[in-house]
């Protein structure tokens, strides 16, 4: 049992209210990712769970036991830091063994744990070397090794891949996911990168300005975002937002955009406000197809910008006074200034209340 329960957690740094009442439950064995923009409090939350920050108000419990007054080393957790935190004056073996030595473990057991962890991570040949002789990826593996040997019940990761270049990051991401499959331990992972969050998480906790915006499985947050912020944060390229006014004439519901263009809407509830935001992801916005369906919304626009990425091409057009990004096949051809027929299925659209940000 290594579940984590956080209730009513508040924290200030001086005058700044960094955590504004966090309530969160993380079940045993789950890979939970805390994600959000800089300053949202995710690192602070992680460090409070670790015991590196003191709890001001609220409670943290691990495996059902209250941890507020417990020292970090007594919480049976392991942590991997952004800057690896390797001791430059110790070799790789000693770095990994550091925590075990601190707990006065017998030499034979230390040796056994370190060598098996090294094997698991493929760094057995590096045990005699010193951190300065290792590459970024190797150092990260050593840091993870140090966490593994402790056989802790909870693993914490504080943006471990931020210092790596893009290619290495992809590789290490896969390794961390495999790690979780091999060692079935509760893991809490902090990142600002939404791709990391989407690929690694069993559940995502999206944070914003000290509060939890939404919690759920990655695809849940992606397909059914609770707020405008969540919709905008997840997904690359970013979701398209258009503002408009709802007009009802008879049985027809229509969204009138800023530049006069109208889009007919699917069913509206009477609780909807006058002004709403429509959101449509680029991958749902494409070339108008031959077959017409009643749910299609079609319009023609001039191409402003073409950005090829190899697998897909992104076209930018203007709608409702804003830039819209559409995703089309790379095989299609076109030039800036051409007129393009685009369409999206209105059932794929998301709607939000501009005042509260909540989904409608």
């Amino acid at each position, binding site marked *: 049992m290594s579940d984590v329960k956080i*209730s009513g957690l508040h924290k200030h740094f001086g005058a700044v209210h960094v955590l504004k009442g966090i*309530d969160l439950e993380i079940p045993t064995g789950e890979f939970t990712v805390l994600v959000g923009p800089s300053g949202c409090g995710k690192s602070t939350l992680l460090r409070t769970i670790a015991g590196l920050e*003191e709890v001001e*108000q609220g409670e943290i419990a691990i495996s059902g036991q209250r941890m*507020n*007054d*417990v020292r970090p080393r007594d919480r049976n957790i392991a942590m991997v830091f952004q800057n690896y935190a390797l001791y430059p004056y110790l070799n790789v073996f000693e770095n990994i063994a550091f925590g075990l030595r601190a707990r006065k473990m017998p030499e034979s057991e230390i040796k056994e744990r370190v060598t098996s962890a090294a094997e698991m991570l493929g760094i057995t040949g590096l045990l005699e070397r010193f951190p300065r002789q290792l590459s970024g990826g190797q150092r990260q593996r050593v840091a993870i090794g140090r966490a593994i040997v402790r056989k802790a019940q909870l693993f914490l990761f504080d943006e471990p891949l931020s210092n790596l270049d893009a290619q290495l990051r992809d590789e290490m991401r896969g390794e961390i996911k495999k790690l979780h499959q091999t060692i079935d331990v509760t893991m809490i992972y902090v990142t600002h990168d939404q791709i990391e969050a989407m690929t690694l998480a069993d559940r995502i906790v999206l944070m914003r300005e000290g509060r939890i915006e939404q919690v759920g499985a990655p695809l849940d947050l992606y397909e059914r975002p609770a707020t405008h912020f969540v919709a905008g944060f997840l997904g690359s390229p970013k979701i398209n937002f258009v503002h408009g006014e709802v007009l009802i004439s008879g049985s027809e519901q229509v969204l009138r955009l800023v530049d006069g263009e109208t889009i007919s809407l699917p069913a509206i509830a009477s609780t909807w406000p006058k002004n709403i935001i429509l959101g449509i992801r680029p991958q749902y916005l494409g070339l108008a197809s031959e077959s017409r369906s009643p749910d299609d919304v079609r319009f023609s626009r001039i191409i402003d910008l073409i950005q090829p990425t190899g697998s897909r091409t992104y076209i930018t057009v203007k709608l409702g006074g804003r830039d819209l990004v559409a995703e089309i096949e790379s095989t299609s051809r076109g030039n800036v200034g051409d007129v393009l027929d685009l369409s999206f299925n209105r059932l794929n659209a998301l709607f939000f209340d501009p005042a509260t940000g909540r989904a409608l």
Partner: protein
Amino acid sequence: MAQSFASVSSAVRRSPQMPDHNFRYWIIAPSVFLLLLIGLFPLIYAFVVSFQQITMTDYDTSFAGLVNYQALFSDQRLWESILHTIVITVIALPVELILGLALAYLFLEKMYGKQIFISLIVLPTVISPIVSGATWRLLFDQRYGPINQVLSWIAGREVVMLWTIEPILVYPAILICEIWQWTPFMFLILLAALSSVDKSLTEAAELDGAGFWRIFLKIELPAIWPVMAIAILIRGVDLFRIFDMVWALTGGGPGTYTETISIYTYVQGFRQFETSYTAAIAFLIVALMSFVVTWAIRRMGLAK
């Protein structure tokens, strides 16, 4: 999904601190104790005793009011010693600063054997002021000191200058020794500071047509000012409390001609045993220095 655990007890109550919270106080405790010993205790003692009348002959611990402090004002020798100290400080400090700066510029650019030059020039700074005072006393000796010898050779006749005895000569002697020992200190610090000035700034200015003085005044001086200020503070304070060097060179003489404030206080305390009076002087000095130093430190934001 998240469940709300807003139970009254955990939301309202401030949780107690972790067991290691007092660690930070335990590790400063021994240091604080020792610092209080030399920082606070003497102050309190001096303060108390200065209001009494303890002398070599008289052990009167009754409260005597401001009698000692009043005596301070009419003490000619005290004010002279303050004057002596100020004279030394006010002359030596700028000279050391300017010479140090000039030397720094001399050695700023690449030069063959630079490291060796610098290592040797720095030697005077690390020896004891007593030793430097003694050394110059030997150098200045009227018959066997090389300085008089060289002067004799230049003048063509025997020159017997009583450097450590003639009133006219003692201050130059002290100042020469002092400047000799401490200019390297300024030099070293200013050299390091100048070396760390961003080269691109000075190069851009040169391309723009700025001459040496303009670059110095507008770019380099502002850049090294924080460091220079600290060096001036350290050196200024050290000059004000100068004792060892003068003691070795002249012993405060002739008579009391080169008596600095530290020497005077020493004499009053350990030769005359004017306990209470010395306490008053000490208290005065400390009060003065505290204000000046604290003001200077805060002004320079040293404590960050």
